[in-house]
């Protein structure tokens, strides 16, 4: 217990923690100063002068904390991100592995893949609305696309860059084709899968918010609350409550950070041999 306390105190007082806190504090202070410049100094600072001050944002936020609709926005966006992301991993990893392992499969699928890949996920929004029966599925599909291509490209690249010596020595030691796939290709690709996943997760948050704004929020039951954080921001803008826009933005920042952090930890768990580097 005391050991944990020491560890905790060390982490809190460590130099990089202090720097992180200082960085955040200075940022918030400058922002507050900029936002209040009109009232305090008579001159509005460019850009920041028209943005609600952090104190006002905090006040708006504290009101929202008790609002179920706000949390439902979180829930909906997170759900869409996770659904799209997991679907992208489930389909993207096997597809990427097959493209890396089989020349024939690669020759057949790669051209189509490469034509579709440069299309921005948001360009899919109208088509997606036509494809899918519900708006919910449309948004999730666009989210899926955001992560899918990145995951596949990373898996293919990772599997192809495995050192040929590993294959040669495994083969010499009597490994079968299946053994080589399971014991060389899979673990050899894992680091790239982790990279693809974290990059893909970032894109997923970008995409879901934009998709929610464009499509008007999807199937919410109680007013706009089913629309997710993207719709929450858009709705606040339309309704003129500028503090809520910032609350929505920060919420997305926090949600994205939590997802990345979770993935980073999962990545360390899955690739223990990279821990010491």
């Amino acid at each position, binding site marked *: 217990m005391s050991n944990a306390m020491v560890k905790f105190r060390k982490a809190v007082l460590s130099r990089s923690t202090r720097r992180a806190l200082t960085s955040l504090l200075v940022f918030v202070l400058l922002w507050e100063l900029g936002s209040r410049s009109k009232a305090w100094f008579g001159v509005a600072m460019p850009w920041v002068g028209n943005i609600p001050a952090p104190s006002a944002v905090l006040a708006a936020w504290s009101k929202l904390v008790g609002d179920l609709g706000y949390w439902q926005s979180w829930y909906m966006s997170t759900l869409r991100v996770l659904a799209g992301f997991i679907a992208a991993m489930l389909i993207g990893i096997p597809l990427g592995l097959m493209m890396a392992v089989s020349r024939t499969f690669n020759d057949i699928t790669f051209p189509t893949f490469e034509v579709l890949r440069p299309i921005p996920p948001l360009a899919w929004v109208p088509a997606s609305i036509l494809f899918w029966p519900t708006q919910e599925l449309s948004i999730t599909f666009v989210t899926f696309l955001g992560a899918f291509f990145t995951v596949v490209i990373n898996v293919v690249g990772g599997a192809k860059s495995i050192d040929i010596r*590993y294959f040669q020595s495994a083969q*010499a030691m009597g490994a079968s084709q299946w053994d080589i796939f399971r014991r060389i290709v899979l673990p050899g690709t894992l680091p790239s899968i982790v990279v693809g996943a974290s990059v893909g997760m970032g894109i997923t948050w970008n995409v879901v918010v934009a998709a929610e704004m464009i499509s008007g929020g999807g199937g919410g039951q109680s007013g706009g609350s089913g629309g997710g954080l993207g719709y929450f921001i858009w709705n606040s803008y339309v309704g003129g409550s500028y503090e809520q826009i910032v609350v929505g933005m920060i919420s997305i920042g926090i949600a994205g950070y939590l997802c990345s952090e979770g993935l980073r930890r999962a990545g360390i768990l899955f690739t223990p041999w990279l821990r*010491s580097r």
Partner: protein
Amino acid sequence: MMDAPSASLQRPRRPTHAASQGAIRIEDVVKIYDPEGAAVMAVDHCSLDIAAGEICMIVGPSGCGKTTLLNAIAGFHSITSGSIYLDGEMLCGPGRPQAAPGADRIVVFQNGALFPWKTNLENVAFGPIMQGKMKPREAYEKARDVMADAGLSGTEHSFPGEISSGVRRRVEIVRALMNQPKVLLFDEPYRALDSLTKSVMHEALLEIYYKNKVTIFFITHDLEEAIFLGHKLAIMTTRPCRPKKILEIDIPHPRDYSALTSPRFRELMEETADAVHEEARKAFELGEKEG
């Protein structure tokens, strides 16, 4: 019983490397890369006999084509003509340009090929499990014993990336020996090591060799290393690769570090240094022309 040091280059009797298996016969091997386009001859009518249990050192400048020869024996690459035999059985030759890789010929690579995602113990146990010779539990037990024998206790559960490069080489040799190979093929395994670590590695390798009499096909560009370790020395010409000079090294085994300062060692260095230097210069000039 040991050979008395003799000044002659007569074929010495081989009491110290009497293994029953692992004789390699390389017969008139030619390797031409890209036979259709700009044909580059990497190996030119190369013939070489390596007795069972012999340490044969292949010396030549970097890029001279000696690794091509190693890859042909291991079965990683094909040959254009000629043939290679292991204990009288054809590995590759007419009608079969590429040998099948097998556990009887294990390569120890230049930069090591331990699987980074497996612990050292899992690496060492890999071969027997894959070949179905042992159940995993049995293989891990054996691997632990073998590692302890080689002074590698305590590194079992580390990953290869967590141990020093010298220790990594030893783990890799132990992993190779777990397959009970007839031949170990070394592709400049100590190239990246500093000279002090290298000398320790040499003694460790000989120690392992004295316990496990396997044939060793060892590629290097380090003449001192070659004379210290080998029974036989084949100095290769540079691209295309072919033996320029083959000689027996009549310093008695078992050897230790003191062999490096013996008069016979000096003599052999003098006898061979010119030939090696000449090829190194040729390789350098070739590189200048291409670069």
